[in-house]
Every structure is written in structure tokens, then in C-alpha cells.
């Protein structure tokens, strides 16, 4: 397993030598969205204005804004998912540990529902 893990790590591709887009969650998605937006915005601006340098400026600007936006959106959803996974894991652990006792979390919910009806 350690050898396979090391092989995966040695295959990692780093943009500008720093950003590992294969092993960093959301990085590949953000860079792809940014690249697509950069091409669209740059090409669109060039077709509209025929100004090459200014189109490149818009392309780079579009890349940066789209990469940042996609990155934050994906990381926010990722963080929410991790929180939910943690809550589920803790809930399962508490359920297993306290099942059949007075501290059983599902038992408390059932008794409160029974009291209400």
C-alpha cells in the first residue's frame, strides 16, 4: 500500500511547480473552469474588438476570477460535506456505544415524539 501511495504521489502534476492539481481537492476543477472561461472571454473579446493584447488581458483576468470563484464554491461545498460526514460518523459511534442505554440518542427522539402525540 505504501508503495502504491508513493507511486500516486510521484505521478502528481504541479502547475508552476507548486500547485498539485491531482492530489488537491477542487484544484483540477477550478483550473479547468478557469481555463475554459479564459478562452471564452479572450476569444469573445477579440472577435468583438480585434484587439489582441487587450483580449489577452481579458483572458487572464477571466481565468483568475473564474478559477477563484470555482475554487471557493467547490471548497465551501467540500467543507460542508466533511462537516456532515463528521456528524454522521459521531452519530453512528454514539448510537453503537449507547444503544440500549438511557443515553441512546434515537431513544430520546422516540420518547419525545411519543410524549407529543
Amino acid at each position, binding site marked *: 500500500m*505504501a508503495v502504491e501511495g*508513493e507511486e500516486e*504521489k510521484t505521478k502528481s502534476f504541479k*502547475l*508552476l511547480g*507548486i*500547485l*498539485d492539481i491531482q*492530489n*488537491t*481537492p*477542487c*484544484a483540477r476543477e*477550478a483550473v479547468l473552469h478557469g481555463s475554459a472561461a479564459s478562452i471564452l472571454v479572450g476569444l469573445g473579446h477579440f472577435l468583438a474588438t480585434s484587439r489582441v*493584447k487587450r483580449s*489577452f*488581458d481579458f483572458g*487572464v483576468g477571466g*481565468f*483568475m476570477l473564474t*478559477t*477563484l470563484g470555482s*475554487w471557493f464554491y467547490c*471548497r465551501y461545498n467540500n*467543507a460542508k460535506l466533511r462537516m456532515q460526514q463528521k456528524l454522521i460518523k459521531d452519530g453512528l459511534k454514539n448510537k453503537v456505544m449507547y444503544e440500549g442505554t438511557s443515553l441512546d440518542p434515537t431513544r430520546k427522539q422516540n420518547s419525545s415524539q411519543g410524549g407529543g402525540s
Partner: protein
Amino acid sequence: MAHPSQLGFQDAASPVMEELLHFHDHTLMIVFLISTLVLYIIVAMVSTKLTNKYVLDSQEIEIVWTVLPAVILILIALPSLRILYLMDEINDPHLTIKAMGHQWYWSYEYTDYEDLGFDSYMIPTQDLSPGQFRLLETDHRMVVPMESPIRVLVSAEDVLHSWAVPALGIKMDAVPGRLNQTAFITSRPGVYYGQCSEICGANHSFMPIVVEAVPLEHFENWSSLMLEES
């Protein structure tokens, strides 16, 4: 654990280290975008045909290159402060361990219930068994129960040392006459390696730290065994 020619962090074994990894990814993406922008500006400046060298001021660009760095710094600082305060949360530890630095070994004391203490010396290279790691293995490991909050009180008996375990996201200076406190929870069972991180003499590189996280019943068996041996 670390592998040869590694550049990045080790896999996280505690929730705090997971948060630090995510913060690092966030900051690295910002650094990547800044680098891309700077690279593009360099290429644009080198290839421009504009020759006006007498521009003395420009309010617009001054505003941009003041506001933009401030915004970037805020984007980095907010998650950073969140993790800083997360690391200082009071977490009602189940166990307190004292880690004392000596020249050149660590000693651990488990004094919550019984008086258990032992030294942890590095295993010399010539005494290693096949599969063991050079300069990282110790004769006695600091065994802790997994998924339990553990408090570690770090100090030293002679000179400055530093108790560091990268996989747990911990580094705490061991200062003679001072008690420093840190805490951690291991998310999964395993063996986590660290090394002394403050120069402390000739054998500073040869006093490693090994933390072994095991299920509670294994920890109880181990502590009974260690008490019998001592």
C-alpha cells in the same frame, strides 16, 4: 509518515492537521493565482511597444494595487485565525502525558492514575530490525488511546528541545523550567513519527518521537504491562 523526496505535508492524523492541510491548499491556490498574474505582467511588460516613460502618477492603478493586496491578505487571515483559535479550544482531555526533553532522549510520564514513566531512546541504525525506519524508531513509544483528547505537557530537563509530530500537526517547544501545553485527538489508529525540532547539541538529530495510537483496550493492556515492567 514521511517518504523520500517528499515536498508536501504528511497525511493528517488529527482534525487540526486536516484543517491545516485545507488552509494550506487554500493559501497555495491564492499564491498560484498571484504568480500567474505576475508572470503575465512580466511578459506583457517585456513585449510592450509603449515607450512613455514620464508617467508620474496614476490614481487608478494606485488604488488597485493597494486594495487588491489588502483583500488577498484578509482572505488568507480569516481562515488562519479560525484555525488558530480552534487549536486553543478547551477540549476536556481524557489523559494527560508529560513529555520531558533530555540530552538526547525523551521521557514520558503517565501520572493520571498510576505512576508510569519511561525513557524513549532512538534505536541505533545497527540495531534496527528489517522494516524499521532509520533515525526514527525508538525503544519505547508514546502509546495513546485513539479518538480520545490527549493533553501533552512539554518541558525539558536541560536545554531547549521541541516536541514535534507533523502528522498530528503538533510542535511545542520544550523549555527548561516551563510547562507548555498542547492537545490532540488521533482520528485513526497508527504510528506517527516526529523528531526534535530545536537544536540541542550533538545528538539533536537522534532523539525522535514516536506516537502510537491504539484502541482503548490495547492501551489499557500496554499500560498494565509497562507498570509491571517498571
